[in-house]
C-alpha cells in the first residue's frame, strides 16, 4: 500500500512543474515533503514487517515490472528524498536569482530528476533500472547546462561519457537476457548461479562495472565530474555530488549483490581491484582538490575522493564481517554521510556565489565576519570532511579503518589516514582565509576591528537548508557512534548474507 503512495506522488511530480509559474516551487516542495514522509513510512514498514513487493499493472514478476522495497533501497530512498527536499527549499531563492527566466522548466526537470532517482532505487527490474538511469542522466544534463556558456561544455562532456556508461550498462543487460531470458532481479539471482563460470556472464558483469563506474565517477573515469559539478547551479551541484553519484553506487550494489551474489564476487578478484581503485581515487582526488582555486571545483574533486571512500568500503564489504563495520555498513554509512557533508558544502558555495559572486578561494577574505552563519556551517561540514570527532566523517573513517584491518589490508588504513590529512590541507586553507586572513589594505591596528562589519547574510530560505545539513553532520555523527541506525544496515547485510562466513 505504501508503495502506491510513493508511486502516485512520483507520478504527480510530472504534472507539478507545468501547472503554474509561481506555484511550481511550492508544489514541488509539497510533493517532496509528502514523498519524504512516505519514504520514512516505507522504511519503518520494511524494518518492522518485511520487504514490500508491488507489481506494476498486476503482471506476474518475471514478465511484468516489479517494484521491490527492502532495507537497502528504503534507506537510500530516505536519503535521496531528504536531500532532494532540502535542495528544493534552498533553490526557491537561488533559482529566482540565478535563472529568473527558467523557473518553471527548472522545477519540471528537477522533478524528473527526482523521479528518475526514485525509480532507480525502487525498481526490481534491471531493464527498468536502465530506463530510470537514462531519465536521471538526461534531466541532469539539462540542469547542468541551465546556466549556459561554459556549463554547456561541461554538460556535453557529461552527456557523452554518461551515454557511453549507459551503453555499457545496456550491453550487460543484453548479455544477461541472452543467457537467462529474464530481466527481473530476483529471478536473475536464481537463474544465474549455474552460469557463473560462463564467459558471457563474466563479460556482462564487467560491462555493468564499467558502465556504472562512469556514472559513479570512479577514478579514472571521473573526468566529466569536476566541470559538471562546478558549473551547475548550487543545488544541482549538491544533488549531483550528494546523491546522483550515490544512487549510481546503489545501482552498483544492487547489481553486484542482488543480480549476482557475494559467492560470485568471491570467485573473482574484482573487489580487490575496486579497493585499489578506491584508494587511488582517494589520494589522487584529494591531491587534485588541493591544486584547485575554484571552490566548487575543489569540492567536486573532493567528491571524486569521497566516491573513492565509498568504493573502497564496498571493496572491503565481502571480506569484513564483524557486525558494526562488516559488510556494506561503512559504504552505506558513507553514502549518507557524504550526502550530508557535500550537500552542505555545495549549498554554502552557492550562498557565496548568490550573495557576492565569489568563486575563488582567495576572494573569501573576511567572509567569516560578513556571513557568520553560512561560514560557521561551512566550518562544521569541513571539519566533518576532515574527520574530526564527533562528526559524521569521523564515524565513516573509523568504521572503514576497522573494516580494512579486519580484511587484513592495513595498507588502506594508511591511505585513509593520509587522505584525512590531505582533506585537512584543502579545507583548512579555506577556513583560514575566511576567518583569519586580513584583506590587503586593511589596517592592522586594533581600532579597525571595532569598525562595524556590514553583515550580508543569505536569506533564511537558503540559510535554513544549509544549517539543517550542517547540524545533521554532527547529530548523525553522534547517532552513528551510538549505533542508532545500524539495525537498518544489519538487515541489508543479512539480506545479502554478508554477515556469515563463506
Amino acid at each position, binding site marked *: 500500500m505504501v508503495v502506491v503512495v510513493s508511486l502516485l506522488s512520483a507520478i504527480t511530480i510530472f504534472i507539478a512543474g507545468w501547472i503554474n509559474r509561481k506555484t511550481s516551487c511550492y508544489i514541488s516542495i509539497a510533493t517532496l515533503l509528502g514523498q519524504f514522509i512516505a519514504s520514512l513510512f516505507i522504511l519503518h514498514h520494511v524494518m518492522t514487517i518485511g520487504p514490500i513487493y508491488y507489481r506494476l499493472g498486476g503482471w506476474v514478476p518475471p514478465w511484468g515490472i516489479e517494484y521491490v522495497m527492502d532495507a537497502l533501497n528504503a534507506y537510500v530512498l530516505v536519503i535521496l528524498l531528504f536531500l532532494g527536499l532540502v535542495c528544493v527549499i534552498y533553490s526557491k531563492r537561488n533559482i529566482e536569482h540565478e535563472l529568473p527566466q527558467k523557473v518553471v522548466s527548472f522545477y519540471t526537470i528537477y522533478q524528473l530528476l527526482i523521479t528518475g532517482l526514485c525509480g532507480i532505487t525502487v525498481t526490481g527490474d534491471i531493464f527498468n533500472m536502465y530506463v530510470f538511469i537514462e531519465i536521471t542522466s538526461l534531466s541532469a544534463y539539462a540542469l547542468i547546462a541551465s546556466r549556459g556558456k561554459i556549463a554547456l561544455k561541461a554538460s556535453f562532456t557529461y552527456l557523452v561519457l554518461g551515454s557511453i556508461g549507459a551503453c555499457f550498462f545496456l550491453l550487460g543487460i543484453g548479455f544477461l537476457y541472452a543467457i537467462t531470458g529474464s530481466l527481473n532481479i530476483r529471478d536473475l539471482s536464481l537463474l544465474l548461479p549455474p552460469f557463473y563460470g560462463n564467459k558471457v556472464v563474466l563479460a556482462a558483469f564487467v560491462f555493468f562495472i564499467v558502465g556504472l563506474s562512469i556514472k559513479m565517477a570512479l577514478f579514472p573515469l571521473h573526468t566529466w565530474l569536476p566541470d559538471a559539478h562546478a558549473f551547475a547551479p548550487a543545488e544541482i551541484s549538491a544533488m549531483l555530488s550528494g546523491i546522483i553519484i550515490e544512487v549510481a553506487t546503489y545501482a552498483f550494489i544492487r547489481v553486484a549483490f542482488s543480480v549476482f551474489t557475494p559467492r560470485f564476487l568471491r570467485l573473482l578478484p574484482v573487489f580487490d581491484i575496486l579497493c585499489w581503485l578506491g584508494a587511488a581515487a582517494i589520494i589522487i582526488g584529494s591531491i587534485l582538490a588541493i591544486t584547485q582555486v575554484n571552490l566548487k571545483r575543489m569540492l567536486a574533486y573532493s567528491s571524486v575522493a569521497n566516491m573513492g571512500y565509498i568504493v573502497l568500503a564496498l571493496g572491503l564489504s565481502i571480506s569484513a564481517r564483524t557486525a558494526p563495520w562488516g559488510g556494506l555498513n561503512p559504504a552505506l554509512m558513507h553514502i549518507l554521510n557524504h550526502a550530508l557533508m557535500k550537500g552542505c558544502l555545495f549549498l554554502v558555495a552557492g550562498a557565496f556565489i548568490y550573495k557576492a559572486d565569489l568563486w575563488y578561494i582567495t576572494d573569501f577574505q573576511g567572509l567569516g565576519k560578513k556571513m557568520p552563519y553560512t561560514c560557521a556551517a561551512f566550518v562544521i561540514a569541513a571539519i566533518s570532511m*576532515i574527520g574530526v570527532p564527533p562528526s559524521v566523517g569521523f564515524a565513516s573513517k573509523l568504521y572503514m579503518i576497522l573494516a580494512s584491518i579486519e580484511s587484513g589490508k592495513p595498507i588502506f588504513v594508511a591511505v585513509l589516514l593520509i587522505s584525512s590529512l590531505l582533506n585537512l590541507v584543502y579545507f583548512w586553507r579555506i577556513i583560514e582565509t575566511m576567518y583569519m586572513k586580513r584583506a590587503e589594505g586593511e589596517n*592592522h591596528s586594533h581600532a579597525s576591528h571595532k569598525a562595524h562589519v556590514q553583515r550580508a547574510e543569505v536569506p533564511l530560505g537558503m540559510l535554513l537548508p544549509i544549517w539543517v545539513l550542517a547540524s545533521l553532520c554532527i547529530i548523525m555523527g553522534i547517532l552513528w557512534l551510538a549505533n542508532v541506525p545500524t539495525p537498518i544496515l544489519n538487515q541489508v547485510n543479512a539480506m545479502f548474507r554478508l554477515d556469515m562466513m563463506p
Partner: protein
Amino acid sequence: MIDIPEYLRPVVALGCPALGSIFILLFGRRPNLREGVTLLAGLLQFLIVFSMVPTVMSGKTIQSYLFPILPGIHFGFRVDAFGLMFAITASFLWILVSIYSIGYMRALQEHAQTRYYFCFALAIFGAVGVALSGNLVTMYIFYEILTVSTYPLVAHEQSSEALFAGRKYLAYLLTSGVFLLAAIVFTYSMAETTDFSPKGILSLAFSSRSTLIFLFVFFILGFMKAAYFPCHSWLPTAMVAPTPVSALLHAVAVVKAGVFGIVRTVCYIYGIDLMRDLGLGIMLASFAALTMIGASLFAVAQDNLKKRLAYSTISQLSFIIFGVALLSPMGVTGAMIYIPFHGFMKITLFLCAGAILVASGKKNISEMAGIGRAMPITMLAFTVGALGMCGAPPVAGFISKWFLAIGAIQSGQMVFLALLLIASLLDVVYFYPIIRTAFFEKMPQDEVLKEREAKVALFSKKTEIIETRRPLYYFILLPIAITASFSILFCLFPDLFHIYGLAQAAIRDLFWRF
C-alpha cells in the same frame, strides 16, 4: 550543592563548559554577562569534579557509560584517581585564568573576544573530557576536539606570524592525531577493548614483541601534544597566542593532555609489567632525558620571555614522561603529581609574563632590567614559580622532583639520577638570569617607548609601581597571587586538593603486586 547521582557527575562536569560555550556565543554582545558565564561554568565544573574525590579516594572508580560505539567500546567515562587529578587541575586553573583573561583581554583591547572565550570553553571541555574518559576511543574524541578548538586561540592575532603558528600547530597535532587513531584501532583489533585498566590491556599473547614496540612508537607519535624532541617546535611557535592561552593551554590543558595520554598508555594500556618486558621503559626514559636537557639548553638562548618559558615547558614535560618511564612506584608518583604541580607553577610564570606585557609592553628579557621594582608582586610570584621549576624546597617543584629522584634510585639506574640532576641544574641556568635582570639590574633611564610615553614618564621615577596603576590590573594580579601561593602551599601540604592522596590511590592500583 544539589545532589547529583554519582554516575552522572562526569557528564555534568563536562556539560558545564559545553553549555557555557553556547551561552558565551549567545551573550557575545554583552561582555559582562559573557565573562560571568565563563566564571560560573568554571566554578560549577570545579565543584562537581571535586565532589567526586571522596569516592575515588576510597579506591572505587566512577563509571558512566552512555552508549556503545563498537562491541567492547562504550562512549563513556571512568573516573579514576589519576584522571581526577588532571581534571581538578584543569578546572581549577580555568577559573583563575578566566579572571586573568578578563583583565588581560580588556586591558589590551583585544579583538574577537567572544570567539576567544568560546574556544577557551571548548578547549577546557576537551581537556577535562580527556581526563575523565574511560577508554581510548572516547579520549581520542576529546583529544581532537581540544586540538581543533585551540587553533583559533593560537591564530588569534591573525597576523601572518600567528597564521603561520596556527598552521604549524594544526599540521603537527592533527598529523599526530592520525597516528593516535591508527594506534588505537590496532590496539582495539588486538585486544578487542580499549578500556583503561591498571593492569594494562595488551600482552605478549596478542602479538609479537616487535609489533608491540612498533605500536608503542605510534602511540608516542600520537601524543605529540607532549612536545618531546624532535617534535616540539610547534610549541614555541604557538607562543604568539595571547598570554592566557599560552598559560592555560600550553602549560596545562593541551600539553598536559599529551603527557596524560602517554601516562595512560604506559600505565593503563601497556601496563607496568609489559613495559618492563619489552624494555620500553629505558627507551622512553632515555628519549625523555634527551628532551629534558636539550630543551633546557635551547631555553638558555631565548630572549623572548614566553619562548623561554615554552622551552622550559618542553623540558619539564619530559620530566613527567621520564618519571613514568622509570616504571617504579615513586617515579610514577612523581610523574603524576608533577602534572598539577607543574601546572600551577608554570601558569604562574606565564601569567607574570602576561602581566609584564600588559603593564609595560615588554616581551623580551633583555628589556626587563629593573622591572622587579616596578612590579614587585608580579616578579615575586615569578620568582616563586622559577624556584619551583628549579626544584628549590619551599615550592611545589621540590616535592615532585624529590619523588622523581627517589624513583630513579628505585629503578636502579644511577645514570638517570645523574641526568635528572643535571637537567634540574640547567633549569637554574635559564631562570636565574631573568630574576637577576628583573631585580638587580638598573632600569635604563632614557628609555623611549613609542606609544607609551606616558608610562615612560612613570618609569623614570625610580620605584613607581605600575602593576596596580589601573583597577583592571587587579584582575591580573589576583590569579597570579593565588597560583603563586598555591605553588608554595603544595610543597608544605602536598595533600591539598587531595592531590597526593589521589596519586597514592592511583599507585596502589598500578603497583598492586608490590
